[in-house]
């Protein structure tokens, strides 16, 4: 067991964790932040994407102890301060960027990381960035559309109305 402390969605948390505790387990089981989903647990699907010091990482493939001292962001920290959906989340709703919603937390976190570095991505940029995020439901078009709309771009010409 080792003591770890980190900032999660702006709050300082500390706990004793085993070396083998994954960041995804720590968030879900210790902090009860179950918005971070675990789809594959083998670093393929991206449902578990969170931000560590601003970078998108797969929480199922990082040990909690390695996030000691880090600034961690999860889907629970994405909404606006008054509790309303932030513009990426709202765009997912407006453009039907989700169906079952299982992949959505990872999609939103990846989208947020993309837009931070690339505020006006092309459709190609969005698709390339989402390479590690798998969705079984939507066929991706509406996710891409939502992310482009969230960046303030006109999405009327993007496939699959």
């Amino acid at each position: 067991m080792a003591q770890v402390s980190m900032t999660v969605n702006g709050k300082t948390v500390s706990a004793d964790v085993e070396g083998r505790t994954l960041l995804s387990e720590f968030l879900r089981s210790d902090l009860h932040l179950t918005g971070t989903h675990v789809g594959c647990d083998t670093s393929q699907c991206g449902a578990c994407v969170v931000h560590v010091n601003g970078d998108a990482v797969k929480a199922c493939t990082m040990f909690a102890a390695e996030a000691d001292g880090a600034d961690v962001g999860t889907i629970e920290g994405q909404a606006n301060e008054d509790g309303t959906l932030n513009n990426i989340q709202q765009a997912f709703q407006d453009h039907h960027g989700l169906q079952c919603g299982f992949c959505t937390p990872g999609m939103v976190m990846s989208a947020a990381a993309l837009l931070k570095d690339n505020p006006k991505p092309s459709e190609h940029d969005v698709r390339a960035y989402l390479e590690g995020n798998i969705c079984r439901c939507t066929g991706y078009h509406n996710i891409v559309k939502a992310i482009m709309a969230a960046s303030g771009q006109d999405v009327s010409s993007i496939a699959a109305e």
Partner: protein
Amino acid sequence: MYEFDLTRPTTIADAVAALNEEDAQALGGGQTLIPTMKQRLAMPSKLVSLGAIPEMKGVCMSDAGEVCIGGATPHAVVSAEATAFPGLADLAGQIGDPAVRNRGTIGGSLANNDPSACYPAAALAAGATIVTNSREIAADDFFEGMFETSLEEGEIITEVRFPVPEVSHYEKFLQPASRFALVGVMVAKFADGVRVAVTGASENGVFRWKEAEQALSANFSADAVSDLALSGDEMISDLHGSGEYRAHLVNVMTGRAVKAAS
């Protein structure tokens, strides 16, 4: 996963000392090791994380004009910062997906020497030097077949130094499910000749295609390699492609890499 201890040293010396213990293993970005441990294919009693060692991170230029990359530098940083060697930055930006690139490191990739990994092709094509805590190893002497390298027990890659070619390009034929290379070819043209390194194809791991190097050193154009043929013997044969298919792809990817580089 089996239980283990995890330590996070902050200097190379402390990491090397911690790795001296029996069954201790280095942890880079964990993008290969953590899945392996989940499958219980690796069971170290102690993991020594290299992620908190500042002297092992970052990209810089040496006085000799080489691009030097700290052994624990993530792929995303190489992609963004190795601008002096565009072929290398471009290769790093094609590894896996953004989240994998934010964690996975150059040292972990080279030490792992996956037969389909991208970095081994860059190291071999550029004639890089792999610097460890105890010595310097030429890329030509480093790779010893699938998942095998000349690293000793407990030895860690602290830095990789890449001579910068005049022009270079990495052409990757993506295996879309794994996002590794089905076949990848790095071509690097230096003043004194061309080096061609192939990943994803051979059962013996990354290799230099000497015949293509000779042809390209005489005439750096895609035509120079179009008539060369590699044998499918000793090429990886699996559900994604036969040995013959891979051998053919090596030729096609080499031609494309030359076109893109010149």
